[in-house]
């Protein structure tokens, strides 16, 4: 058995209304220890108002070998960006 504790990915919500963002990882035996570790490592400078921790092995990553077929087709499709119309001045937060 490995002596290393399992790895957890940490997500922090910086303030209400924003989504949780991945900030790093901690080692912990269970979810409660992971929350405490994440609190002490990643929110000690007022970085957040909410934490998520997720077992790293619960995350499925895309295969780097497939990157070309997954992501490159989007390269020549600039029309998918909503940049082809003018946003009125008084519309905020876009």
């Amino acid at each position, binding site marked *: 058995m490995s002596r290393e504790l399992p790895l957890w990915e940490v997500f922090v919500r910086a303030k209400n209304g924003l989504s949780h963002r991945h900030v790093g990882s*901690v*080692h912990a035996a269970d979810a*409660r*220890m992971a929350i*405490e*570790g994440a609190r*002490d*490592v990643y929110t000690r400078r007022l970085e957040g108002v909410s934490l998520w921790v997720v077992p790293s092995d619960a995350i499925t990553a895309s295969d780097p070998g497939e990157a070309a077929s997954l992501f490159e087709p989007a390269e020549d499709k600039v029309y998918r960006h909503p940049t082809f119309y003018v946003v009125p001045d008084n519309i905020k937060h876009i």
Partner: protein
Amino acid sequence: MSDQHLQARVASIIALGDDALVLGQRIGEWCGHAPTLELDLSLANLGLDLIGQATLFLNYAGELEGQGRNGDALAFRRDVYDFRNCLLVEQPNGDFGRTIVRQLLFSAYQRLLFESLAKSADSRLAEIAAKAVKEVSYHERLAADWVVRLGDGTEESHNRAKDGLAWNWRFVDELFAVDPAEAELLTAGLMVDRNALRAPWDRIIGTVLSDATLQIPPPVRGVVGGRTGRHSEHLGHMLSEMQFLQRAYPGASW
């Protein structure tokens, strides 16, 4: 306010500050040495919370005293006999088991104390306590979780928690001892009757130890003396390091 009354008030606030200062410094010794990176930061945060509380208490004590001493002067330019912290907080850290058991015993006491102190007739003290109680509640939670993990963990971790508990237990009685000089402060609702905190403290600790499969140690004759300046040899060694800079370069700042 009579001189005697003022002195008693200042002394009792200095004791609150010294508990936090000395334990904060002790916990700081773990920085860079804790079992894991996560715990290193947990302990550093915890120690810094305590130093922050010490700053508030000692600055306030200095203001009340009116002799021109601020928190720094009280922390760095008093000799060991003038410190009023309890003996528990000055004990060497030992291993992580002993450190975290001490933290549980002290944080549970401090949380109960600050919850009561937040209702003090001394509004400044009440404000400091109300701010600190949030920090201390987390310390208590963190320490309780670890005591349960160690106690209910492997044979090795169980024994270390058990040894830590046995080591620290003789210093518990002093936490709840009421200084006769404080009687007037209790009547005036300025300070908390520590004696009344013992029963709820026993219940909290009993629950955690039971979850941790640890026994409450048999009664021992409590060691006291810190509140009257009779300290163990450990405090002097700690202060010689903590106060070195201000002793060698008085008034140095950066």
